């Protein structure tokens, strides 16, 4: 009996790495890690050997060579004399533009549809179900192609807007004399300032100082409006009477930017048919419209489901309590249900934003020159640097996704349940 309590000896034998459960998992981990690293090293080595056998080297020098091709939609200065690196930047900005506008539109669509799908109105609820199911269950590429086909096949050529020399009448007339939907682009009025403040050089690109001034005015107005409201709340707390702030809000939020716009001589430049195409206005290409609409509608259907799930996650007691307090359904939704539902909605919403951004690389199907179209398309082809281009492209998409994740995580931290 006395021998049972003998403590085991603390000596370590090599075989314990295999037979002792305390060490075995460590052994396995180290072993698998080495295997993994060996596999990775083998892949890299194999790639290098094959590149050598093909007589190709690995360098990014081509990014500083002349690109030589043109891009129709460019947010920054670019000509065919610019470098491949510059073309990559143009493509990247096009990607970011469609991703940003897509995320905004998809969120708006998703929230509205998600809420309406729960509507007690039978028709509205079913219509939303049909929308969600149709868009969610057909591949995105098909939607992009379909919408693009509708734009190019069902709309008139710019030529149709030209007046007939004999009758003076055109086949088609512009909507409100300002907007023309053609099979190439939608021509819309462009905003111009008659008093140019010049351009701010940011190294990579220029920013119009007029636009900056208007943005600054809007931010200033918003900030002043907050001060006014804070003051009103203070007075209300002291006296019990809240002073009217609506007129100062209107003045600050709308009046200030409008005043700056007027001071800078803001006006619209209307598109007009000259030569082959509309000039003067802004031509929003059909490939952009198709991509943007398809991405928004497709991702919107997913977001609608996320929003619906978020709302359903809030117990019925919450809305019943709100009704008992006399809140109307709309206010119940915006004040009670949605703020709580956001905690459920935000994490999957991040994935949808990431999906939308990555899916924007389907732009190639409609010839929208995004990052995939410039760096991974024309540049890759003209320089023959497949490995470099694809690796760089993967790195950029990874960086964009991580940034979106980080930003959304900050927002998530702000809305999530505060626990102490």
């Amino acid at each position, binding site marked *: 009996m006395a021998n049972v309590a003998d403590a085991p000896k603390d000596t370590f034998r090599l075989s314990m790495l295999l037979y002792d459960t305390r060490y075995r998992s460590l052994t396995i981990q180290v072993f698998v890690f080495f295997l993994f690293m060996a596999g990775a090293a083998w892949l890299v080595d194999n790639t290098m050997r094959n590149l050598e056998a093909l007589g*190709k080297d690995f360098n990014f020098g081509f990014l500083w060579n002349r690109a030589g091709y*043109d891009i129709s939609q460019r947010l920054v200065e670019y000509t065919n004399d610019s470098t491949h690196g510059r073309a990559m930047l143009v493509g990247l900005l096009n990607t970011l533009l469609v991703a940003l506008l897509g995320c905004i539109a998809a969120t708006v669509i998703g929230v509205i549809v998600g809420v309406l799908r729960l509507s007690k109105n039978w028709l509205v609820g079913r219509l939303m179900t049909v929308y969600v199911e149709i868009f969610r269950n057909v591949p995105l590429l098909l939607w992009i192609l379909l919408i693009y086909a509708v734009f190019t096949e069902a709309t008139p*050529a710019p030529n149709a807007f030209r007046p007939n020399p004999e009758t003076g009448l055109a086949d088609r007339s512009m909507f409100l004399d300002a907007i023309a939907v053609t099979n190439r682009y939608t021509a819309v009025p462009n905003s111009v300032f008659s008093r140019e403040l010049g351009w701010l050089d940011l190294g990579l690109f220029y920013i119009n100082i007029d636009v900056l001034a208007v943005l600054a005015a809007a931010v200033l107005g918003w900030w002043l409006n907050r001060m006014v409201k804070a003051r009103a709340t203070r007075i209300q707390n002291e006296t019990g009477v809240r002073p009217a702030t609506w007129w100062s809000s209107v003045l600050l939020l709308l009046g200030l930017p409008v005043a700056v716009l007027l001071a800078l001589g803001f006006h619209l430049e209307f598109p007009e048919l000259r030569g082959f*195409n509309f000039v003067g206005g802004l031509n929003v290409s059909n490939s952009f419209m198709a991509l943007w609409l398809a991405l928004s509608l497709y991702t919107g259907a997913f977001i609608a489901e996320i929003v619906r799930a978020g709302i359903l996650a809030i117990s019925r007691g919450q809305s019943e309590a709100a009704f008992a307090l006399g809140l109307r359904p709309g206010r119940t939704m915006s004040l009670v249900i949605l703020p709580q539902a956001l905690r459920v909605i935000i994490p999957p919403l991040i994935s949808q934003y990431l999906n939308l951004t990555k899916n924007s690389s389907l732009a190639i199907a409609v010839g929208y020159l995004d990052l995939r179209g410039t760096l991974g398309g*024309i540049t890759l082809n003209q320089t023959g640097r497949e490995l470099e281009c694809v690796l760089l492209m993967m790195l950029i998409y990874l960086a964009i996704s991580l940034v979106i994740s980080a930003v959304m995580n900050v927002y998530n931290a702000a809305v999530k349940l505060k626990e102490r």
Partner: protein
Amino acid sequence: MKKSVFLGTLTVAGLAAGLGSAATLDDVKARGELNCGVSTGLTGFSLPDANGNWTGFDVALCRAVAAAVLGDGTKVKFVPTTGQTRFTALASGEVDMLARNSTWTFSRDTDLKLDFVGVNYYDGQGFMVRKDLGVTSAKELDGATVCIQTGTTTELNLADWFKVNNLSYTPVAVETNAEGEQQYAAGACDAYTTDASGLAATRAAFADPENHVILPEIISKEPLGPAVRHGDNEWADVVGWTLNALIAAEEYGVTSTNMEELAANSPNPEIRRLLGVEGDLGPMIRLDKDWAKRAISVGGNYGEIFAATIGEATPIGLARGLNAQWTQGGLLYAPPFR
């Protein structure tokens, strides 16, 4: 065994698949089939017919090479490639040769590690527009929207030409000729630009070819030719000399119909060498004596192929022009068979 399977899987997963073997000739012989990269569909040059049989000018070259190497012009697997995928397909070994209206340029021949082994069509870039636009010269295209196949030399020529002439334009990037055709037909672009031969082929495929004009300006040199991987000289010789044999056959008047008779009776030593009656040219490129004879017998000599696929009697209606024999004022000039 397990290890080799594992490594094999990794090989496929890795880039090893990207490396073609150096001895393409042996590979083709062992496989019993030639993998030939062609365009995804260009009337007259390479297009599958209703039965799925590929026909056309570029296709005929593939068949001639297959006949020379394998003894059978039907033992070809045609791999459709776009302007974007063609060189990768060749470099990765997916195809043994490209016969796909690809322009021979310095950087493709050197930096992209291809070898262009000859020119089977001397071409130049042109523009096609609708007749009712009233445009008669490409210089009137200021402000036009132009459809352009991406990943091609034409894309760069277009940018250069518009810049030199101080004109503006909006490019619409398309992936394949079929897509370009559709966009142009739908009026999504004012002009379509590609090699003049391609424009003629595209126009021939329209329901109303008479409503479209090809503008007179030819803005570039586009020598189109078959390409193989750099560094496999033996295979390059086979493809290059098969093309030369077709060209030389036309020069010496050897056709698919009179070939047997000439082989038996012709006193011309050059013809006798070409047809393998005299000398042993075939074994010099590791083929048998009759290689050229078989190549010519598939679709005839260069002139016969041209006439049958894209010549003036076909809907495409291309004149020989630069592609006539040097004796006729053209540029076709096969080195001596000796």
